């Protein structure tokens, strides 16, 4: 008998018989009927408590905001998506204060060392955010690969203000996640951190030191 059959058989022939199926009451997790403004405020407050930085900008001013953020940090370059509208907009803008724009055009194996050592900042879109926990939703993929939001020391995420959900549960339901999950789905709440050395918080232990959210209103 294989281990698989062995384990399944032991589980199926349970000595004490069938197990009960208690009812589920989701009452404690639902009923957050916050307005759009409340959700934005809560999202911002929550992500700021975990060291995230939030800038609100209109569609017209967001590129200036972005350029300002990068200039202040003296970023030498910005890893930018090729196809997503935010990438296209950045590339088309020719904004004088933007640093060199890089793209993740080829498999990571071809430029891993460069990505790990020479990229200062990356910008990605988001699929929305969660107000209750101050979390960004990302579905990395071909245009915005997984390491973009992980390896460079600065991660800038662009969030559309009308895409903020009350809870994770609500986001999964409204976006119909169970109909098909991507290779990788992520919730990101703040920059990478650790408290493993005597409970002292330190940022950027493996991932970005800084997480900056530009909310487009």
């Amino acid at each position, binding site marked *: 008998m294989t*281990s*698989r059959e*062995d384990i*399944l058989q032991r*589980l199926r022939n349970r000595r*004490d018989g*069938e*197990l*009960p*199926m208690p*009812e*589920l*009451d*989701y009452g*404690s*997790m639902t009923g957050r009927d916050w307005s759009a403004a409340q959700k934005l405020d809560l999202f911002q407050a929550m992500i700021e408590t*975990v060291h995230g930085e939030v800038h609100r900008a209109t569609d017209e001013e967001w590129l200036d905001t972005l350029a300002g953020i990068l200039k202040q940090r003296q970023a030498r370059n910005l890893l930018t998506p090729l196809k997503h509208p935010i990438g296209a907009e950045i590339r088309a803008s020719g904004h004088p204060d933007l640093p060199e724009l890089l793209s*993740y055009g*080829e*498999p990571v194996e071809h430029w891993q060392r460069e990505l*790990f050592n020479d990229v200062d900042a990356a910008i990605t879109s988001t699929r929305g955010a969660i107000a*209750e*926990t*101050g*979390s960004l939703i990302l579905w990395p993929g*071909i245009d915005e*690969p*997984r*390491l973009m939001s*992980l390896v460079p020391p600065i991660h800038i995420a662009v969030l559309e203000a009308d895409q903020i959900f009350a*809870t994770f*549960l609500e986001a*999964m339901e409204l976006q119909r*996640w*169970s109909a098909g*999950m*991507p*290779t*990788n*789905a*992520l*919730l990101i*709440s*703040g*920059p*990478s*951190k*650790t*408290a*493993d*050395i*005597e*409970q*002292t918080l*330190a*940022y*950027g*232990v*493996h*991932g970005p030191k800084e997480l900056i959210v530009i909310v487009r209103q």
Partner: protein
Amino acid sequence: MNQHNPTASQVQSFHPRAREALQNDQLRGNFRRAMDGLMGKRKAAFEGWDLESLRTLGAAVRQRALARLPDLLEQLESQLTSNGIQVHWATDADEACRIIRDICVAREARTVIKGKSMVSEEMELNHYLEAEGIEALESDLGEYIVQMAEQTPSHIIMPAIHMNTDEISELLHRKTGTDRSHDVNYLTASARQQLREKFMNADVGVSGVNFAVAETGTLCLVENEGNGRMTTTVPPCHIAVTGIEKVVPSLADVAPLLALLTRSATGQHLTTYFNMISRPRQPGEPDGPEAVHLVLVDNGRSGIYQDDELIDTLRCIRCGACMNHCPVYTRVGGHVYGTTYPGPIGSILMPHLLGLDETRHMPTASSLCGACGEVCPVKIPIPDLLVRLRRESVDGDSVHPGVVKGHGVKRGRWESLAWRGWQWMHANPGLYRTGTRMAARFRALQPASAGAWTRVRTAPRLAPKTLHQLMKQRADSNSSDNGGSR
């Protein structure tokens, strides 16, 4: 069961180790501070929540998953397989280690980088791989420190909590040449640099799993550092290992468990990263592992599953809250227990993994104060289970005979004879009266010391008269006082 499990003597020297730990002010200070902090943060994180309802929901979600466990495991397997993730089954720790070794050998892998996984600690995977000539390096900062110190984690969430900054700085200096420093940011940055090199060169990444979703074939990982994302993204092959009990039916089940897990563990509303993996790298995707495996580990769990009372142990989501709130754990720390999982969860889980003979001290390493059961996010009745295991270790009774491996290990001939006598006496009123009267009469002969019990307490003394005699006296005097008044 497993060649590299801790030896019996290691596990059983609980008492001498506890005494030593209690005298170590440094260690006690480290734990006290950390645990006070974690308790406070947990409380704050649940502010405004109807915590009782949420815990009830969490418990029900886990119960429903366990009720359908074999079906869910099959559904998970078929969903993962159709997503391109290979599924393996291991009945014990050795088989799980062998499966991982075989995957490594087939890929000619020499180096493995690891994200935090308590199941892999349970399997002692690192030792196994190293004996096979494969380097296994921990990448969670706490685990990295503990591995460098050649120790084991002292807490399931904060592995290096027993060390302070000085000790860690000295260790990093000795092992990696990092300059000595009190600056945690500096120490962290230097570890980041060293580990990034390792990530780039690793052939395989090994991670744990917090929840496995059957409906979509999704592996969920909770973490703060990003090392879990690195481990599951950078090396060309990712192997996830998990206990068979971690499967849940659907994505909707994940939400309440996640809400409970991170708040109970560290008082975070959510960890920095919640990483959900459903596939290996797809055509056109420029990063991610080309191969993903899941190893489902039984290692004693299907045994726990058989019993209507013990099965509650399998609800555990490994948050560590029971440890943080345990008056025993917070005073002696994790190493005293000598097992992979310490504290209350360890005491109800390890006897099943190692047998009661090797873990006989664990069910009694508790004052049964009930704090663990009160904070457990999935309402595991931990104190009841501790009592059950105490009963198991003296071989249960006529209603519930012992079933756990090593049951009856503490049953002594004299003790069971004494209880047999006690039972006989209580079933015979005449014998009972004579016995208690004799005991009262000869109470001067009662020894003043009763072993461990009287080391920190005065011995209770027998009264000159039995309760029966006192009650009878009172009844007699009452009837003479009130005689004929009604």
